[in-house]
């Protein structure tokens, strides 16, 4: 399955790992903050509606 990368195995794999890690981090942080803000806003809106 794994293609033979020859003497550059480490190089190519590190490059892929680093990039995918960075992308995953970015997406995860975005989703995390997005979810938090969404929940917080809904709570706040519910509260303000209740209070008038």
């Amino acid at each position, binding site marked *: *399955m794994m*293609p*033979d*990368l*020859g*003497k*550059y*195995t480490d*190089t*190519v794999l*590190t*490059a*892929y790992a*680093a*990039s995918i890690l*960075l*992308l995953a*981090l*970015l*997406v995860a942080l*975005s*989703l995390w*903050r*997005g979810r938090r*803000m*969404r929940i*917080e*806003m809904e709570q*706040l*809106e519910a*509260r*303000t509606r209740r*209070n008038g």
Partner: protein
Amino acid sequence: MSQIEKNSSLWSYANPRKFLATTERVMPFLWGAALVCLVVGLVWGFFFTPDDYRQGSTVKIIYLHVPSALMAINAWMMMLVASLIWLVRRHHVSALAARAAGPVGAVMTLIALVTGAIWGQPMWGTWWAWDPRLTSFLILFLFYLGYMALWAAIDDPDTAADLTAVLCLVGSVFAVLSRYAVNFWNQGLHQGASLSMDAKENVDDVFYLPLLVCIAGFVLLFIALVFYRTGTEIRARRIRALLARERAGA
């Protein structure tokens, strides 16, 4: 709200509510398409392309390096346009979109830098060389850092939007200037651009097609991230406004 429904131009998406509603609907497709393109492109590139006769298996890095490098520049362009729209038409969504794109662009720049550095080790025998292309990317990264730091440092959202927009404008001019300056200062080692229209002579189809898919994947991912993060910024501002009103009312 009726006046908004009448207004069916593109600007109507500058209404935060409408923006949220619309993006909410297209988000799943965007995420899906981005994921599919990325997976297909990267798997194709990684598993099913041959090695280059000169660069060996390291060509496979191109599927990450080139798309991220392109997006790094395009993200800045997008921020520039969004900043101009904010300065001229004062649509808050556009300022928030610029803010949302900042970290995405910075990460893209970082990926281009990191993959480039890793690639440079076997190819040029060094992690880093002061090649103009590389150097101007480093400077671009600094611009991203400054832009994000300025957003983070200012409390008042409208002030922050104005200041960062002007910084983006001035920064663009200086980024271009830097590019020329750097070129003048050091003629480099880096490959020339080969993704132009007549690119087929430079890069073989075998590498070219999966590369295009990867680029599409990065573009889609960028759009998805920016839409999503703009939504987050809108909500964050709404929270701020609600809290402020609540406190002022109390």
